[in-house]
């Protein structure tokens, strides 16, 4: 019984849900459409709970740092304090941003911090381009030329200096880039479908976790 609950039931549920909703696409009967509506509502709720999983696991990481007093554990306190303050202010504001403390925290801290965090990469891209972007082989030369054409042809100064640069970059995007990307999309999709079928038929079980 335990084995059934621990292993067979999850595999059976995956199979049933997988087959039912793959077939449902081809049979848009009111009953099957009703089932799709209802289960998609269910999934939104379950996935909402699943988001807590990610947050809880981050809390665990920082709690462990504070508990073991590893180097820089004070920063983990910053994580906890800022999280608790944001939650308290958010609940006080009833989840509304306009003219509330939550909106203030969002606009002046989260926007600034997250925006800058990713903008730093811009500087590193420039540095990497200087150090590593070399035409070592024929393939690398093609990559380099395509990149330069794109950077040149998709900005106003490039188009102003060489009017043909814009249309050339457009052609590159609409023909050569499109062809390669389409090949990748078809390849990835075939792989994705194969994985989905393996999951539905219980061949791929890693999502269950553990060894059982």
């Amino acid at each position: 019984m335990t084995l059934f609950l621990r292993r067979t039931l999850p595999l059976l549920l995956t199979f049933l849900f997988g087959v039912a909703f793959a077939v449902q696409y081809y049979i848009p009967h009111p009953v099957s459409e009703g089932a799709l509506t209802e289960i998609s509502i269910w999934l939104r709720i379950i996935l909402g709970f699943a988001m807590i999983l990610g947050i809880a696991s981050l809390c665990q990481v920082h709690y462990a740092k504070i508990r073991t007093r590893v180097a820089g554990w004070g920063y983990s306190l910053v994580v906890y304090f800022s999280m608790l303050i944001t939650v308290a202010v958010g609940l006080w504001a009833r989840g509304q941003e306009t003219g509330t403390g939550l909106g203030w925290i969002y606009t002046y801290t989260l926007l600034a911090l997250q925006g800058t965090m990713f903008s730093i990469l811009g500087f590193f891209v420039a540095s990497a381009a200087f150090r590593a972007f070399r035409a070592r082989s024929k393939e690398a030369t093609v990559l380099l030329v395509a990149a330069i054409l794109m950077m040149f042809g998709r900005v106003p100064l490039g188009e102003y200096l060489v009017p043909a640069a814009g249309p050339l970059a457009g052609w590159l995007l609409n023909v050569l880039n499109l062809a390669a990307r389409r090949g990748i999309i078809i390849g990835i999709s075939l792989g994705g479908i194969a994985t989905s079928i393996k999951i539905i038929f219980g061949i791929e079980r890693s999502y269950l976790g553990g060894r059982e």
Partner: protein
Amino acid sequence: MRELAGKLLRLDRRAIFVLIALATLIPLLYPVGLPIRVSPEVRRVFDHIESLPAGSVFLLSLDFDPASKPELYPMAVALLNHAFRRDLRVVTMTLWVSGTGMAEKVVSGVASEYGKRRGLDYAFLGYSPGGANVIINMGQDLNAAFPADHYGERTADLPVLRGIRSLRQVNYVVSLAAGTPGVESWYVYGKEKYGFELGGGVTAVIAPGLYPFLDTGQINGLIGGLRGAAEYETLIGMKGKGMAGMDAQSATHFIIIGLILLCNLFYVVAPGTVVRSFDGPQDGPGPSTGLRTGSPQEGQR
């Protein structure tokens, strides 16, 4: 010459950082305002909105977070300006949790400029978890996917949503996306079955990857990056953040092209130069928080 090339290749990366900072700062302070050519893919989004009669339903999904604000926020401003000018019924939402506050701000801000009333002329449905699943849910029953809007009003009672039971009644959807869930999710799980017209506005990182879908008509137009936002601003005759940033964009691109060419020249002059990996700060931010990215559902930026 050989020694000089070797030295320059081993230059502290902070010198390059300063160069990029100056190339950004100077054009922002002293803009030139070079003309911006509008590409056909951006024009198609504009033309489609122009072709919609007043009162048509336009759904704008702001599927991004603060990390992509500089690229997608100007796009949202431009599209909302266009939609409100055309007197469309504007329905907005987000599939990215940390983008909710930003989406609310841009929608209510632009709406107030046009004197549009919440619930009557426009709606902000807010955030719902599940990505692609939310799109399926909306395609089946919009009120079930969003029982209440962001402000807690029952969606079934909102006049702006009168007659809209699902995505099938929506005339045009544009997803402004920084990754997954985004444009790709909207056509695979939405347009494919529910048949609405779909346009895309994306960060420059993902724009080249969407051209196959533009070619097949799965998306009818594509606005890519800050450049795309600037093109859309040109079309609607608005001087926004997109156009303001184009001179700096030109300058930084030319600096990087110059750096790449110099790099190759130096390697020709001084072959075999070894560049140390860590001669400045480490390779990227975010070493110790346990979270390198902001959004739990982020796929690509």
